[in-house]
Structures are given as structure tokens and as C-alpha cells.
């Protein structure tokens, strides 16, 4: 663990610089440039709002904000996991030429995604003002929930980084798993009210994505407190996964270059 902290300190500035340059090269040369970072979440919000409220006739209150919170959280989780499976392969030209602790690649990626997520959250706040959703003090519990999301995502990603190298078609498998999880996480419906009583709490508490999404909605829309017991449990699980992932990576990372 000490090695992990030392390495993060040493390569921290690289991770940030590399994240910045990834963002820069993403907008370089595209027509609407950074506007895409705003248009993208807005467009998906409108699509889901249209389908769910008009086609499926859901009567969830403040649906646009409701679904935007779900999508924002999910995008972070989903993109982190999808990219971590292939991340060493995609950075082959770096990994085969120089030693770099491999989780630095995930950390750098997470900075990119955190930045995009913060734009999304700014949009959520804006939408809340537009839709006149009353702000409540519970909004200040934002940070602990975000930390739980980050830790659990990082833990899963670091383990998948390792297996993504040795298992060729892990990406295909993960696509299916993530798709299933997408529908189970209550991104465009409320697990609490839509599922029958004993099961809804299982679906909510045993799936970290669902739990985090629900917690964000509670503090932003409902003005109530999240379930701290389960958030804490997932924080511990996340830390454990991170430790396992870091250990696996430390043990095997020097043989990655032989395989890719």
C-alpha cells in the first residue's frame, strides 16, 4: 500500500497532465468543440424523458433531473469499467517502452471522467433551478456519496485492468454484464417504488451503482438522507477491492509487456 501511495505521488502530475491532454485532444478539431460535453448529457436526458414520460407514461416527479442524475452517475461507472478492460492494450506504445505503474492509467482516465461528470452535475443544478426543485441542506452530503462511487469504481477497474490483459474477450463479456446492470440500476425508473416490496431493497443495496444513484436523488430531489449504513458497507468493499487490485497489479505488472 505504501508503494501505491508513493507511486501516486510520483506520477500524480503526469496523470493530471495526461488527463488534460486527453480532454484537449478530444475537442481539438471537432465542430462544436467543448459544447459536446454539455450537449451530450442534455441530449440523452431529452431522449429518455421522451421515451419514459410519453411512451411509457411514467409519472415520476421532476423526471428530467431524475434521469440526468442516473445517467451522470452511470456514465462515470460504465466508462471507467469499459475503458479499464482495454486500457493497457490501448496504451501499448507507452507500456512497452517505459515503466509506469499501470493504475496511473486508470487514475488519469478517472480525472477525465470526473471532469465530464462535474459538467453534468452543473447541468443538474441548472435544471433544478429551471424546474424549481427546492434546494435542501442535504445537498452538502454530496461529497461522501461521490467518494463511495469513486472508490468502488476504482476497485473494480483495477481488478479488471489485470484480467483484461490475459482474457482476450473480457470486453465482450463486460458489455453484456454492464448492459444488464444498466437496466437493473434504476436509471430511468425508481427501484424503490417500481419493484415489489421485499425485493426492491435487495436490488437497491446489493448493486453499488443503484445505491449511489438513489443516494444522489435522495439528497438532491427529495431532500432526505441517504442510507449511510449501506454506503459505508460499499465503501469498505470498495477499499478491499482496491487493495486486492493494487496488489495484483504490483505483482504482475512487469509481465504485462510480454503479453500485449
Amino acid at each position, binding site marked *: 500500500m505504501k508503494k501505491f501511495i508513493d507511486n501516486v505521488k*510520483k506520477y500524480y*502530475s*503526469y496523470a493530471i*497532465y*495526461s488527463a488534460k*491532454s*486527453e480532454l*484537449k*485532444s478530444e475537442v*481539438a*478539431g471537432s465542430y462544436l468543440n467543448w459544447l459536446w460535453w454539455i450537449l451530450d448529457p442534455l441530449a440523452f436526458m431529452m431522449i429518455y424523458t421522451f421515451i419514459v414520460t410519453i411512451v411509457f407514461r411514467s409519472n415520476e416527479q421532476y423526471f428530467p433531473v431524475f434521469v440526468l442524475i442516473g445517467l451522470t452517475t452511470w456514465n462515470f461507472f460504465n466508462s471507467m469499467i469499459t475503458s479499464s478492460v482495454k486500457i493497457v492494450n490501448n496504451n501499448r*506504445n*507507452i*507500456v*512497452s*517502452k*517505459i*515503466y*509506469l505503474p499501470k493504475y496511473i492509467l486508470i487514475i488519469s482516465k478517472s480525472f477525465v471522467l470526473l471532469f465530464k461528470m462535474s459538467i453534468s452535475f452543473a447541468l443538474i443544478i441548472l435544471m433544478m433551478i429551471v424546474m424549481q426543485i427546492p434546494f435542501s441542506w442535504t445537498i452538502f452530503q454530496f461529497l461522501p456519496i461521490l467518494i463511495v462511487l469513486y472508490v468502488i469504481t476504482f476497485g473494480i477497474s483495477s481488478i479488471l485492468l489485470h484480467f483484461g490483459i*490475459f*482474457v*482476450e*474477450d*473480457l470486453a*465482450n*463479456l463486460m458489455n453484456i454484464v454492464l448492459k444488464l446492470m444498466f437496466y437493473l440500476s434504476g436509471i430511468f425508473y425508481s427501484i424503490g417504488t417500481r419493484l415489489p416490496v421485499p425485493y426492491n431493497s435487495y436490488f437497491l443495496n446489493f448493486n453499488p451503482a443503484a445505491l449511489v444513484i438513489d443516494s444522489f436523488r435522495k439528497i438532491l430531489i427529495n431532500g432526505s438522507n441517504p442510507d449511510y449504513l449501506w454506503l459505508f458497507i460499499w465503501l469498505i468493499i470498495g477499499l478491499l477491492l482496491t487493495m486486492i487490485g493494487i496488489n495484483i497489479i504490483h505483482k504482475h505488472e*512487469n*509481465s504485462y*509487456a*510480454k*503479453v500485449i
Partner: protein
Amino acid sequence: MKKREIALTVKDLRITYKGLKKFSVKKALLSFRTSKAETFEALRGVSFELQKGKILGIIGKNGSGKSTMLRAIAGIFSPDKGTIDLHGNNVSLLSIGVGFQPKLTGHENIYLSGMLLGFSEAEIKAKYKEIVEFSELKDFIHKPVKTYSSGMYSKLAFSVTAILKTDIMLIDEVLSVGDAKFKEKSYNKMKELISDKHRTVVIVSHNIDTLDELCNEILWLDEGKIKMYGPSKKVLKAYKEFMAN
């Protein structure tokens, strides 16, 4: 300062490529046979010591484990057996354009590549002017790298690696890039870098003349083992005779 300071110790280094065959869910479902792990020993017990400030050339035919050895010293591979002791020196494998992002400008890529090599932003800033000057890119430095010609690209890449230097430098084939003029300049720069008394250098090359000119000592690898190790003239002579047969 001690006279005979050791910069690099390699002890009984063994590297095998084995059992790392890729696994796939599809294959696991479709085939009942377990695939046999192929083993290939790239290095089989190599030991040597190198004093600080010396220049070591590694020679040998293709597939004799030269590049594997360099990568192991650089820390990209871990040895399966044996140890590599760098005695606290920092080391870099001199390779061109590590971590370059084509859509970014040359300026940004200098920082990106430099940080990847383990330098801080301030250190790069201090050397920045020198890098740009050496690369002869002038105003192009603020244009995206993807607009560069291949010569300009390698000029920039060479300048980054040549000016941000480390204690131990590992060189895979002597780099000379660009047009004739820059080739000579980069070769001279290379020589200047290599002949610095405090720097230890390991060069892998097939070119006997270059090695003869640059190196003090030569390590001759054959099939992953040391065939000969000693002063450059002696080893190169034996190598030439061996290759002639």
C-alpha cells in the same frame, strides 16, 4: 569519490516468456483441450557488472536476447530469476516519442513525454528552450504533432529524450534521425551524451563500427547466454571472425 563505483549489477538474469498465453472465454467454451503453455527462454543466466561512466555495447545476432535485456534493465520486464541492481541510479530506455499524442501541439507533447520519463514540470520548463532549439522546429512547436512530417516528428522526439537525461541510459540501436544535417547533429549529440563521465550507457546495436567507436566494453550474447565479455576491441574481433564463418 571512489574510483571504481559500480553503477549496474546484473546477477544470473533469466527471463522466460511462458504460460502467459492469452485466455479467452470463447476458447474455453469451445475447446476441451487445455492449451499447452509455450515456453521460450530469452535469457538464461546472464551476469555482469558495469562501472559508473563506462559504455557497454551489447552485440549478438537477432533473437539472442539483447532487447529483452535492455527492457529488463529499464524495469519494463521483471526477471523470472536473478536480480538487477541499479544502485539507486535512475534509468531510461531511450526510445523515440514515448506517449506522444498526435492531436496535441509539440509544446504539450514535450511536457507529456517528459513527465512520463519521470521529470517534474519545473525540470522540463528549465530545459524546454534547449529542447525546442535543438529540434529546429521553430514555430511548428505550437502546431499539432499530426501535422508534422515524419522527419520533424523524429527530430522532436529525439530532442526530448536527448536533452532530458538520466544517470543510466539504455539505447536500442544508435538513433540517428532526420535529414543528413540533423543526422550528423544527432549522432554528435549522442556521442556527447554518451561520453559524459558520470553517465553509464548501455547500447544495443548491430553496427560493429559504431560500437567500436563508442564503447569501452562489449557484451556478446548468444542464445541468451554470454559468449564473451571484455574490452571492446578484443570482443569485436572475435565477433567479426565468428560472423565471417
